[in-house]
């Protein structure tokens, strides 16, 4: 039997030892794995464009005087409210933390309520009812040198609980607005 095997090996010019065979197998399989990983990698990259044609997350939103005390104003097309509290101004993102619908401001009750699953938020954006797990997020709100509000949706503050949502220390108070 052994002679036959030797003869066959000689005739085919193949002289592959077990170790050599395993080495080849290892090389073959690892290159297949590397290739697969690379393909998965670039597929993931391919699905994620470097530039997205969406509205800029940074925009100007009028002068502080445009927002009287106690008002909750939705910026059209931007999904942001600018709220004027006694303690100052704050921007609240109009995207429910549950599943991304746009809550409505209900003046009579003083709450935001989401039409999709009934989450409610108080006027500070804290989640007080329904399935929303966190308070509404806050885009960065600043007063630009020209005196107008500058909202930056890419810098979001995400309060984790009611105490953080009710923290008024970050509200801004532009000088041009007379208090009270």
């Amino acid at each position, binding site marked *: 039997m052994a002679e036959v095997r030797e003869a066959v090996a000689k005739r085919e010019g193949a002289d592959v030892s077990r170790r050599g065979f395993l080495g080849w197998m290892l090389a073959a399989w690892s290159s297949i794995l590397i290739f697969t990983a690379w393909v998965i990698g670039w597929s993931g990259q391919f699905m*994620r464009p470097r530039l*997205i044609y969406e509205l800029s997350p940074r925009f100007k939103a009028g002068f502080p005087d445009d927002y009287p005390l106690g008002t909750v104003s939705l910026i059209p097309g931007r999904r942001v409210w600018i709220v004027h509290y006694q303690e100052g101004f704050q921007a609240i993102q109009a995207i429910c933390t549950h*599943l991304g619908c*746009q809550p409505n401001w209900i003046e009579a*009750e003083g*709450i935001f309520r989401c039409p999709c*699953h*009934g989450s409610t938020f108080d*006027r500070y954006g804290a989640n007080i009812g329904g399935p929303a*797990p966190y308070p509404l997020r806050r885009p960065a709100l600043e007063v630009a040198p020209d005196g107008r509000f500058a909202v930056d949706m890419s810098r979001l503050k995400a309060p984790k609980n009611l105490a953080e949502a009710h923290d008024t220390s970050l509200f801004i108070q532009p000088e041009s607005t007379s208090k009270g």
Partner: protein
Amino acid sequence: MKKFLEWYFYQIETLFQKIETSEKSIGKRFLDWLVETEVWKSIYRVRTPFDTTAKRTLVMRESVWLHLLPSKMPANWLDFHYSFFLGIISFYLFFVLIVTGLLLMLYYRPTISLAYRDMLDFKYGVIPYGMFMRNLHRWGAHAMLIAVMFHMLRVFLSGAYKPPRQFNWVIGVFLLVITFLLSFTGYLLPWDQLAMWAITVGSNMASYTPFLGYQGPFSLLDQWHDAHFILLGGTVVGEAALIRFYVWHCVIFPVILAVLISIHLWRVRKDEFSYPMELAPEGIPAQISSQEALEAEIEWLKKTREKLQEPKLQPRVFVWPDFIIPTAMVMVVTTVVLILASIIFDAPLEEMANPSLTPNPSKAPWYFVGLQEMLVYFDPWIAGVVLPGLIIIGLILVPYLDPTVSGIGNYPLSPKVWKQRPLAVTIFTSGFAMWFILILIGQYFRGPNWQWYWPWESWAIEKTTQAKLYLTPEDYISCAFSKRKTFLPREEADKLLNIRKPTVVECITRRNKRLAVNEAQASEGPPASGVKEAQPSENAVEMVLLAPKPKYQIIGWLALFLFYTLGMWLPRYFFPKIYHIMGVRRYVIMSFLLTTMVGLWAKIFLRLGFNIKYVVRTPWFNI
């Protein structure tokens, strides 16, 4: 069905006799000439009439379309109440959807500036029969979803997933999932308000995927790199999402579905159509767990095949024409129903999608409204990712969790189904019913702001609800041990909290009020507030803020642990035989899934009855 067929064949026979005895008409002579031409013979190799065994077998084998079916099959398949032809109906509807979908693609342009305009073109008759075509596509899709769901139920009830057909059930589950995904991706294409917000809600679930979603627990990626972004090609449902969904809907999913359907049908043909067990030989092997058992199984299959050849035991019929004719009739009936529905009802089209205005209420497509209803009671990553995942895994595991072979080929509506497999049938049908109950609640009992509206109540009257005071399990325990049960006058507490359990609530109110006072003193007087005037709901909010006491959270964990321990142990206690039959691994998986299913109702009960939002809380997720 059988009687009708007999009558039908009798009519055909008499008709042929009449034709043969009468003088040859021009039409008959033309046909005789036609079937003798070389062209005809080159196309159809088997010559009419198909009156011999050989010809009836050949006609099935020679056709590429028909060869997915065998040439003979068990006679029970001719009974409408065995299969209800649901698989055939699903397959046919898929064909209808391909045809109507391709026609719609001739006009539809998937960009946000044009998609809705094309919808209006269909609606206002710019394209003749455009709206009709759209209706056919829409109602056909809904009908297909219903057909595949009930097809699955039928297969379960008649035990057709049992050996040797287990893997075909798994392929069936994939088919079901892809049918749902096809319907979901198609839902965005009209680009109206309904579409956009349903997809916003649906796709946001992806952002709650653990690790891979930016809002999920243990999130690793940001808003511009996570699963949600890859799904939509952007951060919101916009231009990129529309073209992405279009390609998934029109190319990728249909191709996958077509391939899987071929495998599904091929395996049906190879494994035989299911038939009643009385016809099978004795001594069915109990389970395939070892090589011996596998050999026994093969032996049994062989014997079955042999036995099936005996005409007395197993009435078998020719697929052509005995099965082909009812199939064709079912397809005709489906077509008629679909056409009538499309004439009477128009597919809905709302205003053009507006990213800055969510319609109220905003409902998912009806087949996902059950999920949406679940989303009210759970954190999104549980209701949107974990529970659907468990449903799919549970369905896939069905044939592998059920080791018995009893009940194969039962007629789905016969009492034998339940008598032979009480536990399996109870679990599956209750899960199936649960899915539809949740859909019914979401679809017909939820109005603006997802409030509960009875079907006879008008949505015009807005229901205002005060912010609810959510409690925790430990609140109930700690109140049970406290002495004084009242703090506020009862009316005041009721007015303040507007919830049903006054004693416990008052108790908690007292505790929280005390904490609130302490807190206020610590921060030197109450905070000045102009906007935050005495709002009852806001007082309640203050209490929620102060309620959690971390060191007692163990109570919630204990409750959860106890629930799962009991849920997984009780079936074993009451049905020891089932534990014995299933073995440890199968039993543990089955009872875990079952307990989770019951847990869904338990959580709904806790939320509605006891105002408990979360049973256990962690910094990363809540349950």
